[in-house]
């Protein structure tokens, strides 16, 4: 329904824009200047001109001429200063037209799902070009190579490089390089020679004056797959990640090949084919190596510089994004300066710098970088396609030859297909996941040509390449054919062939869990089998990176924290975002009883109601997206669970499945997770080996002894045990305390976000033993945040648990003036109800954690709060706990007492923190799930022994063995 209306609106707007902007132009410009157009002026006004083939240098006289022309008369009240603002004005209007066009296309859902945006933009460009042509009898605008190579292409490549999924890219690096180098060479030679053959056979008209070199040159520029076109088309098709990264990676990397071939042939054409010596061919090969490797090196050098600079931007956060843009762009320009492969340089600068930059800069800068890059890339893409369309209208630039056009179309298609099949056949011998026939079809079909080819062909020197006009026409046709016809049909083709797509559907919980398990299994099996393939070298690289590069490029605080705190923060932020996205659904599902929670939980209902009203109240709103976005209860629950899982599951160490999108942002939390898992596993092994050893010793001692394997076993077990305990204490404790300190220094940075984030972690009192353990282990990280006393006081019982949720309480004070008494009662009752079955087997084990809880009941007695003697404190709290654990209700203080105690508690909590890092952090993060009963019983013993003199009762069996083991 809205389609024709909208389209005509688009056209109307386009016409209006044209009328507004373009018609004054011919009036004020003299006609000699007109063909170059304002866009050319735009880059002549900009600062960089030192690019190959900038056609814009000579335009300034024209502009100045206009200015003189205009400033003739006397004083006017309102002056028409068109020439003064002309250049930026026209650029801005073009950007506006492009952006509005984008909006309009996306109004009609059904239309955009069928027709790719790039097609529409080219069509729009054709229409605009036609209008300009009719109005002016002359084409004012076209895609200037200088503009394209210096401004439009770098924005797109920069975005692609910086957000390139590095893992996926390097996983498929072999295939990408093969297709990019071998494939492009094959395509270009075959196309060139075949066209020459066609010329000899008179299929191509006599008018086309070209010899072998010309055709080879043309073959070189027409054979490279274009990154802009591939991105534009494939992003809408959503083929699976592997397929996408191979095609897209190829389109990026083949730039080196194209640049070299192009330059070599140009020089050959210049000197004439007869003067080419054998040496020159070798020079060509050498040139290829220099261009590609040099480009890559330039990129990596700039990546290092970028990482190094962002180390020191702590005080000037505001210019962090600027550094990113500048240095990535400089990488591109520097490569251009030395005529190396600029695309390669920029890509590798982006890939290389991403990790360090993301770790160094603040969260806000990260968002800024992301959005700015996406915006620029998107607008550059739009402009490129519109200008491609416009350029095609200009008939004076090209000459048609049916033979050449059809031959080229056929040849590039055939050779692409043949090349892909041949290379895939070789590659499949080395690939784990062979590329099957369907993949090959899509890869052949996805070999889109685009603006790079066009810009290159426009750059040709008409003097030397006589057939330039024919080549231009052919290139335009090829680009249009690939982008429009293949771009249009690739979607149905993909559907018809049932190409596995990157599903936008969220995996089910089962899939999510089991796939993680698969990844862990594979990792373990690889370790067991001792494979030293790709993963082995990646491990080596990671070691190098950790020992040298990260030390150099990462901010000291970031490096010392070894990603631990960073990862923690990231998880928190993600959780917080997910909670906000779901309107606090997590909280409602957790059955919370806090009054502040109730107010939070009512928000989603409210928004849902408005959605519902909007949806049903107005029949006009037919936007499918809106309806889709209103989540049903089940969907919401799904996403909630998804987020909880995604945020908390351990990431598999090696096999990393990432989905490419322009918004890709990797997380580095390896370190933290490794430590946790290591400790947990060790603990578990200690358990099992001890118990089995015990049994074995009884049962099989006699047999074993005869075989002589017993001593060996003993010796193998001993070091292992030592490792586990030794690692636990010295490693973990210092790191945590360090974090405490480092956290102070960095606290100011992302304060607001962190506060929100904590809420997710402890939205409720942790009544059970196990959550308490979980909290206790994470408390050293979290608790400093909760120090502001005003935040803590309203919910004092939380302080004992380890990490009070500041956000909750802030909200409580803000939104609902919390009735303290009522809140207290409610929470106590909830505590009571949940903790009434206190899990007898683990009760003893929980002491150290529960002791935290029991501090509050004990708060009114200031004697026990002498912070100097932490050990005595712990023993008292322990004995007290033995007598009356889980006896909150009877100790509910009166309100004033409670206030007092909470105030008192505040400094105590903070003073208690430094002395017992050993107590709070020694219980290793591993929550006691791996070996439920035993595991929990075990590690309290470790530090209890050091702090408490008397063994807790009810712990007889393992305790009695304890000292000998320790």
């Amino acid at each position: 329904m809205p389609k024709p209306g909208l389209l005509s609106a688009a056209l109307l707007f386009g016409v209006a824009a044209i009328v507004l902007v373009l018609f004054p132009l011919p009036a004020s410009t003299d006609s000699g200047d007109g063909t170059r157009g304002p866009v050319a002026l735009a880059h002549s006004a900009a600062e960089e001109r030192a690019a190959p083939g900038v056609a814009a240098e000579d335009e300034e006289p024209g502009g100045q001429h206009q200015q003189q022309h205009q400033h003739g008369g006397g004083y006017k009240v309102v002056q028409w200063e068109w020439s003064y603002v002309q250049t930026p004005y026209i650029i801005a209007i073009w950007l506006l037209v492009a952006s509005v066009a984008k909006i309009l296309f996306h109004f009609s859902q059904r239309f955009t799902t069928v027709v790719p945006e790039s097609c529409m933009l080219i069509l729009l460009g054709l229409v605009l070009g036609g209008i300009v042509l009719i109005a002016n009898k002359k084409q004012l605008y076209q895609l200037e190579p200088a503009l394209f190579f210096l401004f439009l292409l770098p924005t797109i490549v920069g975005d692609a490089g910086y957000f390139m999924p590095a893992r996926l890219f390097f996983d498929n690096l072999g295939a990408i390089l093969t297709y990019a180098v071998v494939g492009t060479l094959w395509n270009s030679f075959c196309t060139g020679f075949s066209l020459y053959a066609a010329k000899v056979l008179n299929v191509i008209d006599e008018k086309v004056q070209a010899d072998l070199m010309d055709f080879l040159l043309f073959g070189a520029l027409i054979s490279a797959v274009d990154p802009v076109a591939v991105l534009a088309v494939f992003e809408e098709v959503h083929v699976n990640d592997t397929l996408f990264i191979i095609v897209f990676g190829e389109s990026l990397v083949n730039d080196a090949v194209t640049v070299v071939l192009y330059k070599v042939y140009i020089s050959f054409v210049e000197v004439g084919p007869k003067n080419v010596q054998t040496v020159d061919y070798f020079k060509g090969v050498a040139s290829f190596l220099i261009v590609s490797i040099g480009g890559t090196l330039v990129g990596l050098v700039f990546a290092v510089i970028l990482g190094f600079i962002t180390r020191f931007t702590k005080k000037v956060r505001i210019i962090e994004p600027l550094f990113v843009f500048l240095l990535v762009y400089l990488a591109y320009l520097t490569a251009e300066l030395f005529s190396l492969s600029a695309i390669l340089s920029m890509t590798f600068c982006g890939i290389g710098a991403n990790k360090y930059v993301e770790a160094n800069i603040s969260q806000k800068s990260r968002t800024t970088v992301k959005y700015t890059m996406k915006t620029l890339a998107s607008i550059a893409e739009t402009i490129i396609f519109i200008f491609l369309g416009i350029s095609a209208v200009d008939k004076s630039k090209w000459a048609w030859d049916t033979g050449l056009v059809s031959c080229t179309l056929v040849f590039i298609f055939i050779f692409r297909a043949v090349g892909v099949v041949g290379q895939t056949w070789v590659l499949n011998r080395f690939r784990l996941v062979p590329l099957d026939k369907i993949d090959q079809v899509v890869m052949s079909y996805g070999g889109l040509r685009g603006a790079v080819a066009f810009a290159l062909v426009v750059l040709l020197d008409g003097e030397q390449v006589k057939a330039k006009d024919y080549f231009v026409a052919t290139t335009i046709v090829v680009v249009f054919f690939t982008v429009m016809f293949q771009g249009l049909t690739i979607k149905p083709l993909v559907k018809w062939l049932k190409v596995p797509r990157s599903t936008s559907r969220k995996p089910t919980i089962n899939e999510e869990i089991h796939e993680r398990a698969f990844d862990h299994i594979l990792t373990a099996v690889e370790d067991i089998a001792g494979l030293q393939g790709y993963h082995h070298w990646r491990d080596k690289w990671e070691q190098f990176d950790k020992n040298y590069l990260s030390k150099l490029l990462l901010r000291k605080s970031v490096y010392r924290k070894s990603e631990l705190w960073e990862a923690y923060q990231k998880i928190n932020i993600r959780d917080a975002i997910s909670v906000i996205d779901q309107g606090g659904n997590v909280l409602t599902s957790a059955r919370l009883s806090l009054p502040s929670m109730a107010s939070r939980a009512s928000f989603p209902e409210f928004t849902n109601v408005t959605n519902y009203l909007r949806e049903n109240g107005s029949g006009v709103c037919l936007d499918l997206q809106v309806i889709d976005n209103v989540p049903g209860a089940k969907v919401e629950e799904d996403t909630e669970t998804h987020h909880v899982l995604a945020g908390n599951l351990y990431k598999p160490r090696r096999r990393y499945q990432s989905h490419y999108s322009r918004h890709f942002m990797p997380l580095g939390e390896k370190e933290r997770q490794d430590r946790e898992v290591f400790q947990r596993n060790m603990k578990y092994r200690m358990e099992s080996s001890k118990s089995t050893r015990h049994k074995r010793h009884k049962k099989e001692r006699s047999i074993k002894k005869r075989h002589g394997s017993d001593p060996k076993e003993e010796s193998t077990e001993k070091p292992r045990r030592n490792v586990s305990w030794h690692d636990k204490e010295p490693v973990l404790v210092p790191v945590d305390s360090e974090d405490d300190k480092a956290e102070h220094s960095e606290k100011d940075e992302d304060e607001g976000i962190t506060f929100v984030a904590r809420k997710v972690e402890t939205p409720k009192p942790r009544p059970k033993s196990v959550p308490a353990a979980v909290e206790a282990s994470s408390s050293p990280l979290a608790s400093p945040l909760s120090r502001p006393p005003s935040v803590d006081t309203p919910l004092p019982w939380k302080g004992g648990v380890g990490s009070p949720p500041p956000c909750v309480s802030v909200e409580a004070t803000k939104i609902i003036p919390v009735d303290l008494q009522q809140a207290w009662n409610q929470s106590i009752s909830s505590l009571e109800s949940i903790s009434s079955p206190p899990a007898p087997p683990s009760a003893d084990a929980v002491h150290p954690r529960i002791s935290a809880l029991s501090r509050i009941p004990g708060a009114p007695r200031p004697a026990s709060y002498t912070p100097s003697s932490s050990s005595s404190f712990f023993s008292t709290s322990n004995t007290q706990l033995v007598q009356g654990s889980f006896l909150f209700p009877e100790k509910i203080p009166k309100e004033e007492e409670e206030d007092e105690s909470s105030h008192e508690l505040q400094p105590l909590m903070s003073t208690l923190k430094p002395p017992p890092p050993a107590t709070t952090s020694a219980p290793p993060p591993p929550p006691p799930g791996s070996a439920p009963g035993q595991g929990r019983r075990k590690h309290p013993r470790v530090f209890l022994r050091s702090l408490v003199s008397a063994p807790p009762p009810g712990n007889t069996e393992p305790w009695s063995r304890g000292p000998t083991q320790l």
Partner: protein
Amino acid sequence: MGSRASTLLREEEIEEIKKETGCKLCQNAPLYLSQTSITNPVFNSVFSREDFQRIPELAINPLGDRIINAFFPEGEDQVNFRGFMRTLAHFRPIEDNEKNKNAAPSEPLNSRTNKLLFAFRLYDLDRDDKISRDELLQVLRMMVGVNISDEQLGSIADRTIQEADTNGDNSISFNEFMKVLEKVDVEQKMSIRFLH
């Protein structure tokens, strides 16, 4: 590499293992083992649990111990080379020609079903061919970070079972397990590219 293997394993035994596990894997296996941290000097002898546990990477694998267990036959503490290779063979990628040829009369070890069965056994501790809620919770707790509470984990487990459970016995049978994962590319996600 081949020479070393043949000195340590009898030829016919190698043949047997080849047939069972797929030949390529087996030929080079001793090579892998000599590179690995399993520094068992004699390949045709047995591996003990401790051999596995000495691999440092396994200690930081959340499921490491479960996977080690999967290498050992039930109730035993040792596995011989053949059993070891059999387990490894689960992770051989399925090759195209293999699908048609059907060399082995029985199902090959690296079939989709067997791959899934391997994963299933990791959950199913008591070997009753069902993943109960407790078993699922244990694995989840292993795989999950510390930031997640028991309550949340419990609801996840409940949801997982509820999603997979078709016959209402509040546990996941192997058939249900397969059904739930039918859209997943198990062949790819449970394969390792062993060097040929």
